[in-house]
């Protein structure tokens, strides 16, 4: 890489291409994530482009055998579009050494958490999903996912995904989030 001064036209071109591509990438990531990235787990959304892009990359890794009779991202627990993630806000534990139902090694699962209701497209049923956080290690930083179906303000804690639910764990330091089926909510 030369240390000489870059000519002005080249700078313009560089920056132009950068601008266009970065935003295209952001749009892409946003689409891949279904939920918009700008919203919550605060600025984690703003972890700049490369991690954001890597989120979608992680999702495009070969998925494990699709569970529960689904193909595609709705059947891939490491995808933000996975059906159980309809009200999640955080890093997916399946990208962090855990799974969509288990915490990564050395963390502790929050016993109290928020609840979403998500429709499983494989059987058409609505399920009650418990988004237990995994706690006691620093931010995982991978596979950020924020979707807000039925999310409510913090004065309604059981419906609020803005709350750090590690508040109920021995260490309140947030690491990642799971999506655990508690049971069927309604038949439809």
């Amino acid at each position, binding site marked *: 890489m030369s240390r000489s001064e870059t000519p002005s036209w080249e700078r313009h071109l560089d920056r132009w291409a950068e601008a*266009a591509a970065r*935003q295209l990438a952001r749009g892409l990531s946003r689409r891949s994530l279904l939920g*918009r990235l*700008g919203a919550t787990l605060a600025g984690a959304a703003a*972890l700049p482009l490369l991690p954001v892009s890597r989120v979608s990359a992680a999702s495009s890794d070969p998925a494990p055998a699709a569970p529960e009779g689904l193909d595609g991202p709705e059947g891939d627990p490491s995808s933000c579009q996975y059906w159980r993630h309809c009200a999640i806000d955080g890093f997916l534990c399946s990208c962090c050494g855990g799974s969509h139902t288990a915490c990564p090694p050395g963390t502790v699962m929050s016993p109290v958490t928020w609840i979403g209701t998500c429709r499983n497209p494989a059987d058409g049923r609505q399920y009650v999903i418990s988004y237990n956080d995994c706690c006691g290690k620093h931010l995982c930083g991978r596979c950020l996912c924020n979707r*807000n179906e039925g999310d409510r303000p913090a*004065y309604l*804690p059981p419906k609020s995904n803005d709350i750090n639910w590690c508040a109920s764990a021995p260490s309140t330091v947030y690491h990642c989030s799971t999506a655990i089926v508690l049971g069927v909510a309604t038949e439809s």
Partner: protein
Amino acid sequence: MRRMPAAILVLSFAVLLPPPPSGADPERPEPLPADALGVILPAPPPAPHQVWVADFVLERTAGFDANDGRLLGMLSAGVGTIAPLFSQARGEIYLPETYYSRGSRGTRTDVVTIYDAATLAPEAEVVVPPKRADVVHAMALSTLLDDGRFLAIANFTPATSVTIVDVEERRLVGEIATAGCHLVYAAGPRRFFMICGDGSLLQVTLDEAGHEQARIRTPPFFAILEDPVTEKAVRRGDEWIFVSFDGLVHSVDVAGETPRFAEPWSLLDEADRGASWRIGGVQHLAVHEASGRLYSLMHRGGPDEHKVPGTEIWVYDLETRRRVQTIGIRNLLGAFLAQQTGTPGGALLWLLERVVPNPGVDSIAVSQDADPRLFGLSRSAGTVAVWDARSGEFLRYLENVGIAPGALQAPWR
């Protein structure tokens, strides 16, 4: 302000400083003199156009001068919510913080750190119950009551309560039980309220020592199931302004002994609703108290998209309850990139702003002076846009405000 004597500069390993040069060349400039060592800059004096942006990955909040874009200084923080409280009267900043003895584990200690606003150095701390709430939007989690003496902190363990700190005496007053109600909003020198799970308010009055003297529970004032208000209210004098998911304005007057609720009115007319306009973003409201202008971050989207970034800022006159202005949100990414090329007014800007998709704005705030500034943060662009809050004219960008920018505050008058 701890100045290090130059003599102790280079100590433990030998460094060879050559002897001073001898002989002067009349054609060459004099050599540069040695710089002073150990100089620490003071913080610039508080001013209305200073804006603070938190960052929970870098664990700090940083102040910026919106007039020239300069970063002014930072406060480091512990884990969880970063939302400092600013006392102009006392020249202090109060930062509720949480620490673990081993960073991510061990023994938890919560403190309120008291900073000298002139130096941004910690002056004192008050240890508080290790219970403070951690919510990602960082709003209504703590508040300074109106005469600046008592600070109230919302707790969540997940049982809720409130901690009271006396910042004048720099001591913990105590904890108030508030089961079923959460978040704190100042409502006078000795009064605050909380929102309860049924849509009512709990108002607590303190005595002169900061202990609970009285409490009032109001009836529900909004439709908790059908159309709840967000917790991201703004205050204008004795009036707290809440807005519901569907854009209904619920005002609460806290001047009297009992909170009074005004008749709700809507930010949206039929045409707006038909076009799917709704509130959005993380901090979606701002109010300029003197002019009575309410700023609301809006976008078009579905009912579960209440956190999607805003694409326009709608401006209302609170007296007439009418929209008086619409501020289109410049493309923070496109314009920022155009600015990088050094041609902020040129054709490239024109093109970039139109071609690069607009990431929108997540948070807004407004300064309270007579020449107010409106601030809009794009978390994904890491940039704050600055507008003239009266004319809506775009003025400049504050760039590189953090890796994971969060709460946006314009605290000084």
